[in-house]
């Protein structure tokens, strides 16, 4: 019998339903079988037919061996998870389970797997079914899951259960296998105009005068100094001038974007909607970073994290993309650093020549001098503002995308009372 037990979350409405089985249970089939066995015993005693006594004993033996085999099936059966390289909120992904049957002789059949830890990361509890693993073999079973929350999730405890061989007795065991799974924020579709807007606002790259450094194109000559690479000596010019001169090369830089992710939320304003806006903002940042990198732009990131301001310098490449997405996936709840703090922090970065793109959950009015001076592009994560440029799949629900520990307390009765109390304490915010 399945018993549902929900992990205590802050919002029961968004909690993933958990299925957990008792370690030993009788099924309805088992009860029917026991009834039939008793009937057979009664028939044998009533008729005194020897064959029926034999059948009665056979049925008792089957019941006993059923309990024994269900234990053997789960014994020395180990699990190894093969997690996907990329898991994105709202996009189905495949987790592969490897069931290693270490028994020398006996196979394992009909084993159900249910994840007990980390299930909140998915829309449904990850479950799998292994039909057969022969002795000393590994059965590989892929399972499709749908990530629900971004962040780093620990998958530790899991439950193996079986009702093999006849379904009379259901047995379950809990085991541990610690694995970490990072789920990136949701990735949507970005309007190309937004990327063009970022390019036009860029103060670097092709539209800027070339700067020294690099190896791409000729920039100029300079007097050679000791210690510099002799390969760069411009011999013809040196012969003509009698002074050792060296060539200076320049680098053709692509547009550089610095995404400023504003995750600030005032504690008194925490609600599902505000959290959803923040999550949407993070998803927009991830989408922008991903699409810009695919378009060949260098992308950097500035956001507030547990360790202070996290700055990722603009760069390109798949690995950089993963890094950016990983930072975004792990962004914590920010109740300290406001939007202005973020802009102030970004000034030093913007001076290096990158185009700042501010993604904020609220409507921000910047001063004209700021915008002109830095070429700042602002994208609001409010639904009406974001829909202009970003389009997300309907399977993404931003009100439940945040990690569990960031979820606002609105589920239980006590939580509601606390929420009400906070609202009364801050009438202006309300």
């Amino acid at each position: 019998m399945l018993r549902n037990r929900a992990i205590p979350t802050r919002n029961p409405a968004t909690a993933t339903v958990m299925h957990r089985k008792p370690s030993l249970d009788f099924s309805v089939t088992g009860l029917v079988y026991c009834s039939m066995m008793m009937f057979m015993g009664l028939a044998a005693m009533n008729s005194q037919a020897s064959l029926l006594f034999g059948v009665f004993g056979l049925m008792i033996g089957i019941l006993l061996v059923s309990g024994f085999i269900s234990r053997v099936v789960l014994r020395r059966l180990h699990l190894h998870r093969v997690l996907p390289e990329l898991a994105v909120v709202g996009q189905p992904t495949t987790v592969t389970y490897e069931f290693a049957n270490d028994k020398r002789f006996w196979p394992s059949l009909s084993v159900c797997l249910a994840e007990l830890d980390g299930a909140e990361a998915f829309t449904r509890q990850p479950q799998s079914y292994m039909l057969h693993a022969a002795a000393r073999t590994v059965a590989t079973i892929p399972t499709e899951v749908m990530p629900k929350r971004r962040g780093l999730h620990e998958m530790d405890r899991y439950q193996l259960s079986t009702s093999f061989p006849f379904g009379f007795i259901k047995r379950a065991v809990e085991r541990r296998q610690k694995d970490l799974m990072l789920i990136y924020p949701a990735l949507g579709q970005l309007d190309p105009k937004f990327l063009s807007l970022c390019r036009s606002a860029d103060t670097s790259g092709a539209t800027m005068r070339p700067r020294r450094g690099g190896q791409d194109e000729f920039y100029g000559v300079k007097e050679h100094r000791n210690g510099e690479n002799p390969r760069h000596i411009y011999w013809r010019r040196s012969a003509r001038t009698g002074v050792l001169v060296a060539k200076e090369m320049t680098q053709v830089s692509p547009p550089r974007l610095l995404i400023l992710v504003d995750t600030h939320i005032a504690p008194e304003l925490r609600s599902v909607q505000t959290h959803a806006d923040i999550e949407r903002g993070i998803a927009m940042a991830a989408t922008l970073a991903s699409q810009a990198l695919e378009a060949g732009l260098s992308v950097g990131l500035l956001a507030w994290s547990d360790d202070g301001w996290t700055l990722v310098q603009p760069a390109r490449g798949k690995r950089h993309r993963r890094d950016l997405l990983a930072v975004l996936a792990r962004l914590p709840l920010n109740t300290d650093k406001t939007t202005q703090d973020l802009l102030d922090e970004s000034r030093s970065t913007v001076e290096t020549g990158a185009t700042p793109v501010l993604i904020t959950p609220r409507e921000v009015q910047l001063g004209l001098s700021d915008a002109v001076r830095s070429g700042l592009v602002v994208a609001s994560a409010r639904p009406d503002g974001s829909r202009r440029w970003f389009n997300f799949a309907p399977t993404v629900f931003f009100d439940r995308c945040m990690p569990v520990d960031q979820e606002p307390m609105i589920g239980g009765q006590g939580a509601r009372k606390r929420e009400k109390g906070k609202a009364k304490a801050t009438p202006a915010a309300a």
Partner: protein
Amino acid sequence: MYDIRQFKPALYLLLFLGISGFALAAQWPGVWVLAVGGIALNAWLVKTGRFTPMPRFLANIVTIIAFIYIGDLVLHSVTTPILIIGQFLVLLQLVKLYEQRANRDYAQLIILSLLLMVAAAINTASLAFGLMFIAYLFLSLYVCLLFHLKVESEDARKAISLPEIEPSPNMLRQDQRHLPKSMRRLTGLISLVAVCMAVVVFLFFPRGTGANLLGPLQFRPSRALTGFSEQVGFQSVARITQNNELVAHVQVWHNDKPLNGTQSIYLRGLTLDHYNGGNTDGRWRRAPYQWTRMLPQGPEYEVARDGDDRILRDPPFGTDVWRQRITLQPTGSSVLFGMGGPSYIKLFRRGSFVFSGYDDSIQVREPAQVQQPIDYELVSSGQMRYAAVPPELGFPRMRYFRREQREREEAERVAAERAAAGQDRNANAPASAPAAGGGLHPAVGGMVGTLVDRAIGAATAPAAASGAPRGGGGDDAGQAQRNASSDDGELGGRRRRDWGGGGDDDRPRRDIDGAPSPQGWRRPSSNIDPQIAEYVRRPEVSGTGDGGVPLVTLRDRFLERERDRLLKADRDRNVIIDDRFDPLTPYDEAICANIQAHLRSTFTYTLDLTDAKRIEGQDPMVAFLHDLKRGHCEYFAGAMTLMCQSLKMPARMVIGFRCDDFNNVGGYYRVEQSQAHAWVEARGGTTAEPLWVSYDPTSGREDTGVRTQSVWNRIRHVMDYLEHSWAANVIAYDRGTRDNLVQTLENRLTSTAVTSTQQIGKLPSWLRTENWAISSQLLSGLVALAMLALVGAIGWFAWERWRLWRRATRIGLENLPTEERLRLARQLGFYDDLLTLLERRGMARPLHLTPMEFSDSLAFLPAEVYHSVRRLTEVFYRIRYGRQQLSPGQREKLDHSIAQIESLLGPSRTA
């Protein structure tokens, strides 16, 4: 991956086995043909994809119609209800088979099939069915396992969102390769445990308790005995058909030597002494032309424990001893069969039985004894003493008011005889009464035996000799006589129990059918047609004596003389002569032999008696003698019995079996229904010791000894022996056998414990005695050996560990944890051997090369060697880094590969 393809073929096979088993048990080939045809058709439709499930409403209608039909059959058919229910189950299976949609239907099919086999198991003791049942149980386990996997995988597929990813071919291959093997292993384990448990329950589960708690499952006996019947009638002339159904297995020892089948034996059942003739008054519910048994039932014996024995009477001195061990199948009759003159019986099933000393018949009383196979052992003498039956049905004292006076006179006379003879026969006086002709003429002894008071004494004989019949006085002759007197007054066994042991109470008596009986009713004689009496008097029938005078005439003259003399001698003794039978004459046996010879030579044996028009409205016996001149054994025996009785010679028809089918493999006679037989017993012997002499007048049934031993017969005997063993050891396993087994086990355990204790107790004394020196040396030697063994074991362990250590170093495992290092060193021994082999040939692995690079560097070797080394290196990698473990079989294969490499490379340089 989740498709259990083995399920459906296994299910169809299971259904086939179930229906075959049921058809075998019920012996309904028609049902088998129809059901198997239906299953085969369904399987073909499913396989070819043409199957469409039957609409649900149609299935319901068919089921309801079948239910009504089966209900009608249960109420009105003569077939056992459980077989009819089985028929219904077969029909339900077919309906379900053609309605199959989901797993629920498969589950119902499996359960229906199991119930069908249970119904069949109740109804048969056949070995073939037993074997089929065992196979069925194993197959059903396999099917249940597959079915569970099927259900679970389908549920999982619905409950768990499985990705639309096709499993890799390797995985599929692994499943297809390993799943049957795994299923076989698990089925084997389940079967082993289940069978062990079944054997334990079968052997040790308490038997007998709770029997018929819910009433008998079989409302009628499973085997109606068509060959043998307790009554013989001639109204239904076409009733006799050949039936080869098994009745019994009989082992016979003659004077403690087993019979080897060189002669036929007659197993007596009941005797029928009264023929109703054309009497249609319906008295005692007898039909016209019917033979019935009109004899007192005899005392009842109780067998409290399985295997208890009872002495029926003292065996006659100097006669042969025939010991018979009989396993009787349920016949629907309460009669136990055996050879004539039984004196001892041992019943292997508790219950009670009734023994009648008049015709030596034994009948069990408990219903369970009738419905189940019964084992018993009988010791017979082969001679049946003639005991006259009292002519009255009522209580003798009511009619013979001068009995006390006669008893007093008789006691005085007996006392005088004893005084004269100087011997005391007081204890057995009633038993010797029929033979105590005393001072009368020898020829009149039989007549005296027919006198009422003698008849009482004769009737007492079996009761007095039987030891302890229920309600009887045992050693007390007077009590036994009173019991016998009460036996005389009642013919039904149950009524004897109702009336207790005393005969002096005034409770009303009842006749054999339970109706109140007028006291002092005279025992009726057979209603014999005058044509029969006339027929037997023909000289060609009864024979002629000296001078061509018919024997019947000579006999009449002799009887006339003796009657006059007897009446003249006993005029003052107020005796009553039984006018039913004449006394024994010297001509009786000759007449009987002539009648037998006449019937055998003149009449024809046949079972085809459907020619009813010729005997309609006519006594069948008369028709047989005058018109038909053919018939089966009952006609022959009936005609001869009536002919003898018409001459007032005591005669009776005996029904039983004539056994001539001897099984050489098992050393027993196999008795079938087709061997049911009827013959005649007539009074013979001498006047001093009158006996019942058997005659078999049926023509064409002469004793031809054993049947011919053809190959087919031998095969049949082997199969029959197996079936007999199955029935005797499995089907007939009951409470008694279980008690014996438990008792034997207890005894053995106790004796083993006692013996062990004694042996242990003797050990110190043995050590204390002169054996001490020897034993101390022995002990010292043993201790030294043990020490050596211990040192050797430690040394071997250390050497082995050192060897593994070195091997691990050679392979490059020295940086691993100790446990892992040792494990890998054990597993990778083959690779070490390979390296050593190559090193001896100058191909040492440089330290900077990985194993794979090293194997690649050996490309100069012959291709076969190179590929073998590559494969071994790959195995090395799988074990070293893939945590694969080698089985012993795989190790053998690897060793074989290395040996092949060695042979291909030739001798090493060092060698």
